[in-house]
């Protein structure tokens, strides 16, 4: 299992997304996952071996590194990307469920030819009814996960700047020792970059929510023009 197979799994969801959803997915893969894999991982590659403390005391180096870096940026980003991409699978599961129901209906109505079943497989589902709700919930989860990770980052690493020097006095360090972080400027550049792209992704998700809500309102308004409230409610219930 690697990012390539993850990419294969998630990009399958692309077909049922809106235009904004596809842009979000491209931004995620190109500006976050690709940058993480080809660039950021090598910047953080020597973070422990390059972490030097001004002492000969064995163990002090390890303890200070662990104290100041409880979880590495790279691992946090990997978790963030996985969790943020996963709600899209909710939509994929719902689509698969709907297709399964359609297949059953086709078989009951006697249209069980391979051609009809193929048509169900290739047909693009419209984001209406229950699928609309699933999609919106998945968007909300994405936004919540993104914001939570940004907050976690801020909590663990106050400010988004990587400092050059940390002063450590954890046991077994004999006194307050100076410890130097490797490549702090480069790490700051990449941290800011990843946060900026994360912010762009949040904006895209919000835009998608607004777009879907607007579309649904527009649909209801045009339907309300030719039917009564009771008929509208019946229509909504039937679409579930």
């Amino acid at each position, binding site marked *: 299992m690697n990012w390539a197979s993850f990419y294969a799994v998630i990009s399958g969801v692309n077909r049922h997304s809106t235009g904004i959803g596809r842009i979000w997915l491209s931004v995620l893969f190109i500006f976050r996952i690709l940058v993480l894999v*080809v660039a950021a991982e090598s910047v953080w590659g020597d973070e422990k071996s390059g972490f*030097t403390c001004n002492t000969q005391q064995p163990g002090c180096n390890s303890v200070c590194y662990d104290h100041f870096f409880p979880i590495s940026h790279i691992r946090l980003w990997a978790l963030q990307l996985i969790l943020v991409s996963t709600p899209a699978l909710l939509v994929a599961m719902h689509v698969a469920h709907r297709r399964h129901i359609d297949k059953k209906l086709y078989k009951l109505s006697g249209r069980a030819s391979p051609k009809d079943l193929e048509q169900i497989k290739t047909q693009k589902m419209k984001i209406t009814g229950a699928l609309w709700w699933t999609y919106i919930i998945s968007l909300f989860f994405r936004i919540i996960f993104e914001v939570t990770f940004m907050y976690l980052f801020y909590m663990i690493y106050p400010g988004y700047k990587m400092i*050059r020097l940390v002063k450590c006095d954890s046991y077994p360090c004999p006194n307050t020792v*100076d410890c130097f972080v*490797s490549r702090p400027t*480069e790490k700051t*550049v990449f941290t800011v970059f990843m946060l900026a792209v994360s912010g762009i992704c949040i904006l895209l998700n919000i835009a998608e929510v607004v777009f879907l809500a607007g579309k649904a309102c527009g649909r209801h308004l045009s339907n309300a023009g030719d039917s009564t409230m009771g008929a509208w409610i019946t229509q909504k219930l039937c679409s579930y």
Partner: protein
Amino acid sequence: MSWVALYTQLGGVNKHSTSLGKIWLSVLFIFRITILVLAAESVWRDEQADFTCNTQQPGCKNVCYDHFFPVSHIRLWCLQLIFVSTPALLVAMHVAYRKSGDKRHIIAASRSGGDDKTRQVDLETLKRRRLSITGPLWWTYTCSLLFRLIFEAGFMFAFYFVYDGFQMPRLVKCEQWPCPNKVDCFISRPTEKTIFTIFMVVSSAICMVLNVAELAYLITKALMRCSTGISKRRTSGHVATDKSLLQNKTNQMLLSSVTDSSSNKTAYVLPSFPNELFLTGGLLYRPTVLSKSPNSATIVGQRSDVKE
């Protein structure tokens, strides 16, 4: 997820590029991405480990390395290549959007008349067809070229600014805290790094020249098309684009089922790109009026001799 995935994404764009665009893509992949992955990364692999300072002071090496190399060459090149490749995806998105619109036309047209087989053939041709770079696609393509140029130039400037030129020195003198005084620090493989830096800069410059040439080619082609279009209209008065031909075909099929003889109005269909003019029968139609009669939806287009 790696350069291979980016290659597969961009390889698909190749079909809709000009010849210069295809050359640019090959130069990008062969002379820049492949060289970066196969050669440059191993040259810069031990850049920090072998960065040696003439001092025993712990931390001095880290601090001096960070001071002289705020962002490594390799990372700058990775970011440059990612940013420079991305505008091509704008074109891919536009092509996909256009193809989905045409697909809807074909399906709608075949639903009212025509058989399944013709529809399948049409859909297959649509999938394989190479779109010509005209109309809104021309603008998208030109914008993507401009973005590419801006990103290339931006990164070249950033490189020059951060590293004060393109040469890697052998020795740097550092006096950052906690270094006790001015210490000499030695960079690993400076000549090899200089060679690769110059190579990457030259490839970047070649790519910029190709982009400028492609831009000039597209602009020239568009101007020539405009001038031949104007002269043709003056002589024959009948110009049909492939889009308007498709629209005409759809209109004709729908016309046979929708004509409202009682109101003495002939029905025309609003095109899917309502802001564009389309030509049929030598006259320009600007679809502006939509009228709905109580029994059937009769759609009226406004005929005019409006010149473009």
